[in-house]
């Protein structure tokens, strides 16, 4: 009898520990932009993977992208980027955020982001994103106002002129509930 009561309690408690819903990142395009007096260059990655886990009305998201997956069309620049960002030592860029579950219905979102990159962690508050839901998929676009100094990266230089500190990252993602 005691065992049955215990089993009933355990079964009753299980839903409380289980996630309510999950999100999976279907597609992502991340583009960083670097400005130099002689060059404007962009590096693109389509290799991001992400997951969102919702519980009690809150969703925790984690997005990861390998540093070396960014392609600027110039292998020399990509290798230099990998070196200055210490991409072999810290091979992943990780983005974490927490959102209310109900926010997927909004057209715009202001998101607090925590980004781990180059061995540093930076917080970005209230970054605006646009949301569009089509055929069960949610498309998110926005730009993260990242800077080199946020991650203690020495600005690379060409012909003794350093690049600008601002390296905005354009984000285009498609999420699907699972």
């Amino acid at each position, binding site marked *: 009898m005691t065992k049955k009561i215990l089993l009933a309690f355990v079964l009753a408690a299980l839903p409380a520990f289980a996630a309510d819903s999950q999100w999976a990142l279907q597609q992502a395009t991340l583009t960083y932009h670097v400005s130099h007096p002689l060059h404007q260059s962009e590096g693109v990655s389509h290799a991001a993977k992400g997951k969102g886990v919702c519980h009690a009305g809150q969703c925790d998201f984690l997005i990861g992208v390998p540093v070396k997956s960014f392609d600027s069309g110039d292998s020399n620049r990509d290798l230099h980027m990998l070196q200055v960002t210490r991409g*072999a030592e810290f091979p992943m860029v990780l983005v974490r955020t927490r959102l209310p579950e109900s926010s997927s219905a909004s057209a715009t979102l202001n998101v607090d982001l925590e980004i781990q990159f180059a061995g540093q962690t930076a917080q970005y508050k209230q970054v605006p994103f646009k949301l569009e839901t089509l055929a069960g998929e949610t498309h998110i676009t926005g730009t993260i106002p990242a800077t080199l100094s946020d991650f203690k990266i020495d600005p690379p230089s060409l012909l003794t002129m350093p690049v600008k500190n601002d390296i905005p990252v354009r984000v285009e993602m498609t999420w699907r509930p699972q």
Partner: protein
Amino acid sequence: MKAKGTHLILGVGMLVFSLLIFSLLISVPLQAQAQTQPEPQPPATPNNLPDAPSSSKTEPTLQELGFPAEQTQANAAQQALLDKRTHMLKIHQRMGLITTAPLIATVIASMGAGGRNSSTTSRDLHAALGGLTGDLYGITAYYAIRAPRVPGTETRGPIRFHKVMAWIHGPGMIATPILGIMAFDQKNKGEKVHGIASAHGPVAVVTAGAFGAALLSVSVKF
């Protein structure tokens, strides 16, 4: 005889000068590198590790994203290789820029070195500047050739053109001084420059052009 002696003294002088520049260039980046050694990281706590167990039971982890382990693990040897490569290519870039100055000066000095109205002094000056250019070019090339390659990297973008140009200005930088010495000797004997030595000018122009194109290809976006 006197001209040869002057040429030798100028050549040795330029070699010493280029070695002095070289030693200065080497010491500065090394000092800078020593100063910018990363500070020791504080001991990692579960919260600042990307794949650490989260305090929240619902927070996804890096393992759940499904990246292969080799893609997420730190590789100190690879980072050291990248650091060495960047260090050597920075010197290559700096030396390449420095080499441009005597190269331009050599081209300008060539105007008084050839032709009927040339003088021994202008030929000596041209030869000395050419020697300096050759020395600095050699150091520049050394740092590009010796910079470690990163396995599995396919060369893409303007750097391809930069490397193709090296196949032109590299042999050119060997041929130009050899032809130049031949032309110099013929001129000093009072002869008109003849034979293969007469190719000194055209070879030098092609070499300087390829060098300039290589420099611009990685500096200015076309």
